[in-house]
């Protein structure tokens, strides 16, 4: 029972991290129809920059900010000079963004080397929490979960209750009509894309402290985030929340109960789900 609770907590921690990455991916796709495989690279670069800042200043909040801002800048440049050239062609988008991710990955390898590096956790979060029943669990992971929940709440409020959110939702449903009503679609794209890359870089910093950061981490986490998006349905924020929880928990239980087959435990249900619901749990009809 104790290990069940422990694994559940692990699963939720990972889900929080995945949600941060997947929410950006799903919103950029929903609004702009862009498949951005460089999302993992934003995560990676955020993690590495956060690591350097955290080591230099000892300030974790500053590291989170630096990681997020660097990724936003990278995302902005990528959008402006590369991704725009692919138009609506998904194949071209994938090739360009995978190419970009390769370049970023190798540059990071050159700067930070090939070892797995752990971002220093701030001193106040280094302890453990003792739960009723005698289970001890690291404070930092509770912090991670709270960040995940807080970001989810903020995104949800923005998405459901604000003018910008309404415009985004409308844009996901029908982009041309939104443009026709006089809403500045380009500016909307800029906001969503900036938000997505910021969250990716931000999650890289958290991920660096939670899982360490190393060459290839960008692809591992990207695949998990993509599974979240597939299960939840492209373009759906609520889907990303549910999907992240499903993937995080399945991964934790899979690693615990069937370590050699944990990938099956994760991807098997996804495959079966897709046979019955090819667009995921909450995917809209017009998303392809």
């Amino acid at each position, binding site marked *: 029972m104790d290990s069940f609770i422990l694994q559940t907590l692990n699963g939720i921690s990972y889900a929080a991290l995945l949600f941060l990455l997947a929410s950006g991916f799903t919103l950029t796709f929903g609004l702009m129809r862009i498949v951005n495989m460089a999302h993992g690279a934003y995560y990676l670069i955020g993690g590495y920059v956060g690591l350097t800042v955290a080591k230099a200043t000892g300030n974790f909040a500053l590291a989170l900010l630096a990681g997020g801002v660097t990724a936003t800048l990278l995302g902005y440049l990528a959008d402006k000079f590369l991704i725009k050239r692919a138009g609506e062609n998904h194949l071209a988008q994938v090739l360009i963004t995978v190419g970009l991710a390769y370049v970023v990955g190798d540059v990071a390898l050159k700067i930070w080397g090939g070892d797995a590096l752990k971002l220093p956790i701030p001193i106040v979060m280094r302890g453990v929490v003792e739960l009723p029943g005698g289970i001890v669990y690291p404070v930092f992971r509770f912090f991670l979960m709270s960040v995940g929940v807080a970001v989810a709440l903020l995104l949800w409020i923005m998405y459901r209750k604000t003018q910008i959110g309404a415009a985004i939702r409308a844009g996901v449903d029908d982009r041309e009509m939104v443009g026709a009503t006089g809403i500045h679609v380009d500016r909307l794209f800029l906001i969503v894309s900036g938000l997505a890359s910021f969250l990716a870089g931000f999650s890289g910093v958290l991920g660096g402290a939670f899982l360490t950061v190393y060459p290839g981490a960008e692809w591992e986490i990207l695949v998990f985030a993509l599974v979240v998006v597939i299960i939840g349905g492209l373009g759906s924020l609520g889907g990303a929340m549910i999907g992240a929880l499903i993937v995080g928990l399945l991964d934790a239980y899979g690693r615990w109960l069937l370590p*050699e087959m944990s990938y099956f435990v994760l991807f098997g249900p996804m495959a079966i789900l897709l046979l019955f619901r090819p667009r995921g749990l909450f995917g809209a009809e017009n998303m392809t």
Partner: protein
Amino acid sequence: MNTTRLIATRLIAIVLLIIVVGLPMAAGTYWVGLVTQIFIFGLLALAVDLLLGHAGLFSLCHAAFFAVAAYTTSILQVRYGVSTQWAVPAGLLAGTSLGLLFGLSVRTRGVYFILVTMAMGYIIWGVGYRWSAFTGGDSGITNVPAPMVSGFQISTAEQFYYVVLAVLLVVLALYQKLVRSPFGLVLRGIKSGEPRMRSLGFNPARHLYVAFVISAFMASLAGVLYVYHNRFINPVAASLHVNMEAVLMAIVGGSGTLLGPFIGAALVLGLRNWVSSFFEFHLAVMGLVFIAVVIWAPGGVIGLLRRYSSGKEK
């Protein structure tokens, strides 16, 4: 104009054939090995391109078929002492059976298809990597013996080169027949307008499924040849990078053509071998090639040639 072009195409084909048949007599083992590798990866790229260039499906799980076939053949040979003439069909069967299963992904389209196949590819990579008791984990299967068919051992690089070449010529002939058949026409019809094909009474899902399985078989064939060429297999063969590289080869050479994937394989592998002799970060170079091709030459080498020659005709 058309007849001159036909004659030119035939001439080029004959010259190419003479070059590839004569290569081992003129070139050293290094070049024979490199060209064998180009043939094998070109075959993988051609498999990917059957879906990409003709049916418009961008699959990211073909490295899985490649790897499963290679693993099956090598595990049977190395660990159970099964002979080549049984290990090879078993490998092809394993890879193609996986294709029968993963082919269910043709229920999805567009981005979902890309993402779903990518995730499925990761299952195989993950199994290869984590189920180390069976697959050897990170270090994989080593010491794969040279193939031996009815008492005759194919041991030298030159002999193996001719085996690969023979397989390749048969595959190319059949492939050409396939894409020119009504079936190939239906695939291209689905690519350019699926609703229209449906309203004409075709069942796109069934055609795509068959194409998917055929292409999984081709990828398995490449995998079996690869493991006998390389004498070693590890989870890297199932990775996304191998799959992306095959896609890159098809695009660089010219998607939707017969020889494009091979031209692409030659360029990509040649570039990689050359770059890695003086620059350790070859992935970044590959990345730049991806970006450059999409932006400046989306039709690949063959696309550029066609543009050039049709420009001259005017």
